[in-house]
């Protein structure tokens, strides 16, 4: 499974990188961690003419925790998230979700930006982006733009990125201390893509759920926000009845694909089960 031939460039600036992408009218691709791209090349599922390596670009791997939220540069690697002592407290949902990504060796190379741009419907990072209503900063020939996560993921392995654009940063809204949250996924083996997964958080106002956000991965062609389920839960006390109602609403809300690993009805039921368990887990208030 040798890779197909391509040209390679390692520009020193973002502008140069964008120009290189633009110069090949759609047949150039970014490489950074390479953990998703190189296997695709090995299977010859992609045959770009040019790879533009972000290796030399400075400043894209910062983790910034500030009052207006958490910013991750696109080149931040999973191992860097593991090692950041402040992130665990600053955004525990992000850290927990990232714990599930792939394996040790891949975590040393794979990047946040790579995962977001690759947009696998079962990947954790896109799930967090959708659940938390993240904003993604993108640079292109026309300059910089910001996309909402809900606009960014447009289909399976597809995003709003044009072929000459580069994702540079993701910003997650600020995370108040004491917020209730949970992340739960089910995969066949440790590190595999989730068969289904759920991320959620909410506030408690007068002991009732408020402003709940629920995101699901692995059950559609992109990560999903389960707004119908959120509607069932907002304003409710978190009790067995509410959890039951939420699980039932989940089953109505999703139309998962069937594939060799699981039929649609399994994924549907699995997601409902995971949601119920995640809600119960969130009660312990980490």
């Amino acid at each position, binding site marked *: *499974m*040798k*890779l*197909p*031939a*391509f*040209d*390679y460039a*390692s520009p020193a600036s973002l502008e140069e990188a964008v120009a290189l992408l633009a110069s090949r009218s759609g047949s150039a691709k970014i*490489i950074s961690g*390479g*953990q998703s791209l*190189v*296997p695709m*090349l*090995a*299977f010859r599922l992609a045959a770009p003419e040019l*790879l533009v*390596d972000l*290796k030399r670009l400075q400043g894209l791997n910062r983790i910034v925790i500030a009052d207006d939220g958490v910013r991750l540069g696109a080149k931040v690697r999973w*191992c860097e998230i593991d090692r950041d002592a402040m992130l665990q407290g600053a955004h525990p949902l992000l850290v927990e979700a990232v714990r599930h990504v*792939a*394996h*040790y*060796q*891949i975590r*040393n*190379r794979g990047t946040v930006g790579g995962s977001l741009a690759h947009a696998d419907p079962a990947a954790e990072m896109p799930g967090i982006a959708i659940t938390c209503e993240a904003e993604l900063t993108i640079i292109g020939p026309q300059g910089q733009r910001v996309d909402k996560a809900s606009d960014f993921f447009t289909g399976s392995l597809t995003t709003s990125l044009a072929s000459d654009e580069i994702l540079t940063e993701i910003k997650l809204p600020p995370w108040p201390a004491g917020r209730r949250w949970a992340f739960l996924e089910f995969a066949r*083996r*440790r*590190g595999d893509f989730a068969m289904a997964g759920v991320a959620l958080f909410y506030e408690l106002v007068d002991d009732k759920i408020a402003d709940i956000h629920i995101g699901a991965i692995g059950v559609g062609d992109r990560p999903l926000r389960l707004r119908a389920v959120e509607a069932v839960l907002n304003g409710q006390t978190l009790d067995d009845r509410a959890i039951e109602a939420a699980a039932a609403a989940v089953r109505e809300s999703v139309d998962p694909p069937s594939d060799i690993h699981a039929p649609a009805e399994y994924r549907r039921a699995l997601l409902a089960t995971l949601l119920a368990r995640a809600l119960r887990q969130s009660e312990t208030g980490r």
Partner: protein
Amino acid sequence: MKVEFELNGTRVGADVEARTTLADCIRDQLKQTGTHLACEHGVCGACTVLMNGQAVRSCLILAVQAQGERVVTVEGLSRDESLTPLQAAFRKHHALQCGFCTPGFITTAHALLTEEPEADEERIRDVLSGNLCRCTGYVPIIQAVLEARSAYAHKGNEE
């Protein structure tokens, strides 16, 4: 394209195509065949090498991406006269049979224990779940890595 990096402590250079993986460069151009290819799509871990001290899948890295970096393979973790404590633990616990996946386990375990000499069994299993072995069933590998920890205690960031 020319690429230069440090391999097992020595500066090396190779003439590669952009598409040549680090694994193929190490094996074919640099003649270090201890790093093995069992899948070439980043799942099995047999090709694991250390890059700047971190365990990485060399089949997923382009040789040109290794420019200027520090690469260590299983050969660089070996001595002529004797086995290292990690290797001796593998041998003692019969943690290898056909030996094909073994270099990947040695490099990965070495990286893990160098960073985390106190790693417990669950952590070791978690990390090694990224390396496939078809012969041993993993039980003796875990035992070997657990035993090797004592040799890494207090070693700091040595490679």
